[in-house]
């Protein structure tokens, strides 16, 4: 006979059945029965955060780096509302997450009780789905459904709101964890239509200027290996969105790097001049397309996405493929192999010729205005942030997991750290959440204890969640924090330079910045301050040295406060319209 358990124990047992390793959470009144159940077991480790927002970002970092749903536990009221920013972040970037919130007892719901918030209502616009527990006996099946919904189809966060009375230790039910999920109205697609793949393949064979445009969906589908094979076989250039970096190796000859607002010159030019765009798990975000009316004027658009609402939402697809990217790539790769094995020598010559012509154009763009990945330090000048990222790339041999916050440092990291593996680059692309970087890195480190985890941040973003330095000490997380300190809200300042006549309204605070070295030391960690380009390599070498391997090291790099991120899309322009440098940026005001 199955054992009888209280609601709190039913919840924890169900999480164990789901294979949960960590719960990122913070206790409080409405969640205390659950916390008592956590105390009674050893299988799942609870990570005590310092703020609920950080708990959600940790779960998010864990989820994005491992592919498994992250789990958050918060109490009702402020605990729940503090989690909202992190839930919205995960929602925008399609990260699988299950957020459990305590709720006031059922008989108090609706009475404005102490620490009462309508969590299901407040979170509704930013969750994939949510549940409100009515009785303890529903808990196992709700947990099963929540994980299924969070992790399948287009992944996303799911909230389970649990009134305190349903976890009462004195009310017990048999534990019976359902093997199958019964959700007749939830039928995520995986396979698309073969005829759409046929049309896409024919368009590809006809095309002379194709570009693969890959987004975060390509990473969650796990199609990187197949994608690399496919792109290589036909020598197709690959451009990635901010979320798609790493789906195709950035150091690969065919990688054009990132596209979009701060994308590379060659990626944006190639997109604009392409005659065929194959989009994999990307959603034609406004930061990519710029003015949709001017987007890729000559291209046939093949749009592959598991979320049919993303297809043709912004740009009408000529060939719509509602399917998982891995399914599509496998199908088209098979067709492609079949075609290549029977290709007439004349046809091959013609195809290779047109491909060479396309690549010669791309190479010319790269030559003309591509990113300089071999910047040299200029002695006596402030450190350029781009140089700092390049030095970081070398110091970590390109193998670190890198999380970032939001702003200039995020764009520099995306441009200059060549991500060769999927899931290696983790940032808040959709919502653009400052304060994401450090807690996300903590979640990544939990999921990958043996790997080097770096958080590239700026002093503005870092101060939004720096209380988690304390959590890092508690759990011995040896994260390396690279703070590109420009003593300002750099991206805001850049926009003010470019569009507001250089009026720096509320974007500077240099007189009141803390001494970060002393600050992190007070939290029990190591601080290193680097000033002057000549000290960059040696400072980073120390940060990643063997004696500091098990330590959290905060590297405060004082960078050029006046630097801008380029290229930058011209407001309301086409993808081929970019500001390439400061002189042009200020002249175009």
């Amino acid at each position: 006979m199955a054992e009888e358990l209280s609601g709190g124990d039913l919840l924890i047992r169900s999480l164990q059945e789901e294979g949960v390793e960590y719960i990122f959470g913070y206790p409080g009144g409405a969640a205390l029965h659950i916390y008592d159940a956590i105390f009674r077991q050893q299988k799942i480790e609870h990570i005590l955060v310092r703020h609920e927002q950080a708990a959600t970002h940790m779960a998010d970092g864990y989820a994005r780096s491992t592919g498994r749903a992250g789990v958050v536990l918060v109490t009702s009221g402020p605990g729940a509302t503090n989690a909202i920013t992190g839930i919205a972040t995960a929602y925008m970037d399609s990260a699988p997450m299950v957020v459990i919130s305590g709720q006031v007892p059922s008989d108090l719901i609706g009475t404005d009780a102490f620490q009462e918030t309508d969590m299901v209502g407040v979170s509704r616009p930013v969750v994939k789905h949510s549940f409100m527990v009515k009785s303890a006996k529903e808990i196992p099946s709700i947990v099963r459904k929540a994980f299924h919904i969070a992790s399948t189809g287009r992944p996303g966060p799911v909230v389970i709101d649990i009134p305190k009375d349903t976890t009462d230790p004195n009310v017990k039910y048999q534990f019976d964890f359902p093997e199958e999920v019964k959700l007749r109205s939830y039928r995520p697609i995986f396979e698309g239509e073969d005829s759409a793949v046929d049309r896409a393949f024919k368009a590809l064979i006809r095309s002379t200027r194709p570009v693969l445009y890959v987004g975060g969906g390509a990473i969650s589908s796990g199609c990187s290996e197949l994608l690399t094979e496919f792109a290589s076989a036909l020598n197709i250039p690959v451009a990635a969105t901010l979320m798609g970096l790493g789906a195709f190796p950035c150091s690969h000859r065919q990688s054009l790097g990132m596209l979009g607002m701060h994308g590379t010159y060659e990626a944006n030019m190639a997109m604009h001049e392409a005659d065929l765009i194959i989009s994999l798990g990307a959603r034609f975000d406004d930061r990519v397309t710029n003015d949709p009316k001017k987007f890729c004027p000559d291209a046939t658009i093949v749009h592959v996405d598991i979320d049919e609402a993303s297809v043709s939402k912004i740009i009408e697809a000529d060939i719509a493929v509602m399917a998982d990217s891995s399914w599509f790539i496998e199908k088209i790769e098979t067709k492609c192999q079949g075609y290549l094995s029977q290709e007439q020598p004349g046809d091959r010559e013609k195809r290779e010729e047109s491909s060479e012509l396309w690549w010669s154009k791309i190479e010319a763009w790269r030559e003309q205005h591509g990113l300089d990945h071999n910047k040299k330090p200029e002695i006596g000048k402030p450190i350029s942030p781009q140089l700092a990222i390049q030095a970081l790339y070398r110091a970590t041999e390109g193998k670190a997991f890198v999380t970032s916050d939001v702003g200039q440092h995020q764009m520099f990291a995306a441009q200059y750290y060549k991500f060769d593996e999927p899931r290696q680059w983790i940032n808040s692309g959709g919502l653009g959440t400052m304060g994401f970087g450090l807690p996300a890195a903590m979640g990544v480190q939990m999921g990958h204890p043996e790997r080097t985890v770096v958080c590239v941040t700026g002093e503005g973003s870092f101060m939004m969640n720096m209380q988690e330095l304390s959590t890092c000490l508690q759990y011995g997380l040896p994260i390396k924090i690279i703070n590109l300190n420009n003593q300002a809200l750099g991206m805001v300042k850049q926009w003010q330079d470019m569009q507001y006549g250089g009026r720096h309204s509320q974007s500077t605070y240099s007189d009141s910045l803390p001494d970060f070295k002393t600050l992190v030391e007070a939290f029990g960690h190591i601080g290193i301050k680097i000033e002057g380009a000549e000290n960059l390599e040696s400072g980073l070498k120390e940060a990643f040295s063997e004696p500091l391997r098990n330590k959290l090291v905060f590297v405060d790099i004082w960078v050029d406060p006046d630097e801008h991120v380029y290229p930058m899309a011209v407001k309301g322009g086409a993808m081929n319209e970019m500001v390439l440098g400061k002189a042009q940026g200020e002249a175009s005001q």
Partner: protein
Amino acid sequence: MTRQLISILLENEPGALSRVVGLFAQRNYNIETLSVAPTEDPTLSRITLTTVADGVQLKQIVRQVNKLIEVYSVKALGGANCLERELVIISISGASSKQLVSVIDFAQSLNASSLVKSEELGILQFVGSGEEVDHYINCINAKLVELSPDLRIAELVRSGVAAIELN
């Protein structure tokens, strides 16, 4: 931009309706009319709503609604493939008894039925397509003005559209 009719079958669960309505607000779609009730299968509810959208927007609305976990199916109905009905109840007050009789007779000639008729109050019910209901209301208004420039409909309640597919 044209009027569009959308029929949604969803799980008959607490909160399911608010997800659909919330989605419309969140994505900046509007709802002109809305009706909800359980179906022949008590575990499923039917939402019938009308909105104003062009073809591209309609496709997007249908796909976004379909993404909701509790939505079993969603369909855009329209034109000849469906039969739609809406109910309107109108009360008229401040009319003389003679005027009231005249309005009620007129309404009945338009296939409306009279629900209440007293000295000072008349309540009329009319069932038809949305377009027919609009037309009926215009006719009643015109009739009232014809009887006396001061006469008005006192209160008007519309049910929202219910629609059924024809094949």
